[in-house]
């Protein structure tokens, strides 16, 4: 369970840092009236949806950290036979990188109020993400064709499960992206879409980061790191 503990330490550190700025040492029984430091005095408060997304990403992060914990516990068993390296995962990963890059382009287009570029960038991001999912499916299909099916080894089971859950999160993101694309056809003011685009980009970059960690784990590169962590903790 070292991965999830490590993840919670990071979350806890962020939480402690935030709490340290919340006047937890205040003595509210001595303070009457309106005093400085209360919300509303800041000129530009962070939108609720950004905070909401941040917390949602922490939940998604916990989910994948738990999966990694389970993976690293299960891989210690004697029957574990790692899935052979899938070279196709490299170009597939590139597709997700491209999707994230397109969303960065969309952010710039929204900032410069270029509606046409914004539409193109969002559609490109969506297409790259769909291609990424198709690529993942192709990898799973190839594995099945060579007899590495879901059930014949726990490593395969985890491979399918982790890729599937990550893909589900991409699909969820595509719903939000689709709504944003739909909104670009309903408005002439890109300013009104800046927040949605920014949220999509943040979510995409997070899923890319998660995928890179999973990629390293599934291809075995993270094994040394996992072994070091395990040794440190035991």
């Amino acid at each position: 369970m070292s991965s999830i503990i490590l993840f919670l330490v990071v979350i806890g550190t962020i939480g402690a840092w935030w709490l340290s700025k919340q006047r937890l040492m205040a003595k509210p029984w001595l303070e009457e009236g309106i005093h400085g430091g209360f919300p509303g005095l800041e000129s530009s408060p962070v939108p609720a949806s950004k905070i909401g997304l941040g917390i949602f990403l922490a939940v998604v992060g916990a989910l994948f950290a738990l999966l990694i914990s389970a993976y690293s516990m299960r891989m210690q068993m004697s029957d574990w036979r790692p899935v052979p390296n899938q070279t196709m995962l490299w170009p597939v990963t590139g597709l997700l990188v491209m999707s994230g890059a397109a969303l960065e382009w969309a952010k710039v287009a929204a900032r410069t109020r270029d509606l046409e570029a914004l539409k193109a960038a969002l559609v490109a991001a969506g297409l790259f993400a769909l291609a990424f999912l198709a690529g993942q499916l192709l990898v799973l299909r190839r594995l099945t064709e060579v007899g590495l099916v879901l059930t014949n080894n726990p490593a395969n089971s985890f491979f399918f499960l982790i890729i599937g859950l990550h893909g589900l999160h991409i699909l969820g993101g595509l719903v939000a992206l689709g709504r944003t694309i739909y909104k670009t056809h309903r408005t002439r003011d890109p300013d009104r879409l800046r927040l949605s685009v920014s949220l999509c980009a943040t979510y995409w970059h997070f899923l890319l980061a998660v995928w890179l960690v999973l990629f390293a784990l599934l291809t075995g590169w993270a094994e040394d790191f996992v072994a070091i962590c395990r040794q440190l903790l035991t």
Partner: protein
Amino acid sequence: MVDVPLDTFGGLPPPEVPDVDLYHPKSWVTKYVFSQDAKVIAIQYSATAMSIGLLALVLSWLMRLQLGFPSIFSFIDATAYYQFVTMHGMMMVVYVLTALFLGGFGNYLIPLMVGARDMVFPYANMLSYWLYLLAVVILLASFFVPGGPTGAGWTLYPPQAILSGTPGRDWGIMLMLISLIIFIIGFTMGGLNYVVTVLQARARGMTLMRMPLTVWGIFTASFMALLAFPALLVGAVMMLFDRLLGTSFFMPSLVEMGEHLSYGGGSPILFQHLFWFFGHPEVYIVALPAFGIVSDLISVHARKNIFGYRMMVWAILAIGALSFVVWAHHMYVSGMNPYFGFFFATSTLIIAVPTAIKIYNWVLTLWRGNIRLTLPMLFALAFIVTFINGGLTGLFLGNVVVDVPLSDTMFVVAHFHMVMGVAPVLAIFGAIYHWYPKVTGRMLDETLGRIHFWITFLGAYLIFFPMHYLGLMGVPRRYHEMGEMAFVPQSAQTLNAFITVMALIVGTAQMVFFFNVVWSYFKGKPAGHNPWEAASLEWQTPETPPPHGNWGRELPVVYRWAYDYSVPGAASDFVPQNQPVASRPASDEDR
């Protein structure tokens, strides 16, 4: 006292965030069924959770009938017994207590207590309830499928949960897992609302350190639940894969009925880690809102500011953090490295420190207070003693050497029912008696309430105190009937019968409460805006019950914390949070 006049800032500062764009319902259906108003959603959550609670109560009766009077009721065979145990446990822990505290009280109280118009994501909030209801329907559906609901025990431990021979192996376990997955997705939508509303939608002047402890409790518990439920989700998905697709995440090599199963190499212990990584924080996900609620009830009904407010907030945060590093104390008998056992025993005992701080502070709040023995106060006092009882036996069980012999005995059942069953339910009742006047505009009947309180409080002790004794004698839990056990005297059966009779009486007494809730809604004494003379913001709404949007045209401005009771020199014995600072001459004390 530090007074900061309004004109320091040249008038009121702007609202913290723009007013929430409220969704205004256009029909009866969008107002009362697919409602996006947190107060309606709260009532939907509460009504659903209480209905499930009643069903879970009946299941506990059936279990008790079998234990108290074995083999008299032919329909309670071993299969049915295990199904009742499993469904009672899972329903009560997840679908009743979690849903009621966070979905019910969270939805009703957070926006009102922090001075918001509604939750920040009302649509997601609505979806949260409907997913919860779907999860409940799927769970209940398992009573009607071939083989019935799962009888794997509420912990759903593999491999037995999905092996033939365990009740509900075909459909029941799948429906349970699917229901849990949907519940968790729904809760995530609700939980995000509770946390972000506290962070982003507080009224002007409502700093974190001016929030009532109820909000602190629900806020921290929601954040914990958001991080803990994924563990159950991962466990449920993996077990569903094992059951449906034949993977071996948790399933070791097994021979069943002389036949070697296709499973192999899986780790049942891995499931235990995932389950308890959720399961232990879950105890505090239920307890923290109860702590917050009880703090507020005691302060209001003792007419005294809460003692050690800062320490209470820090204790909530400390308990929340520590609860994530104690999970394996539920697994001592599964076998673990002794150093781990030592670590988890120590961390378990350390949690007792912030918990004890809270209890001392409640007692010190009562000390020399102007105590009004109202119904909410009675329930709050009952909560404190019950939680102390349950907490102390928790210290026994947190120690490896004591836990191992007591594990799987009735002592454990008695412990967790006191600390996580009776105590939170007493807090829930106290909260309902306290906030019912705000929700309906009418008071609950006092006489009926007192009958309900005394039977529930004393009855619960008559049920669970003897159960500790049974456990110490070695009476095992999870046994359909004891049969011949040399070490268990015949008198244990007499005690079991007594417990069953008490359980039937206490359960029946809850009908008095439900009758009171319905009767008072139509015939109860009008409550007015603030019948308890409370200082916190929810009692200061312009209308009671609060309408859609809560606050009329203007959001409130907060000038002080929520506990200004019996303030020396004040005109009345409470000063509402939104009452502007009077321009009074500074006293000697201020100087």
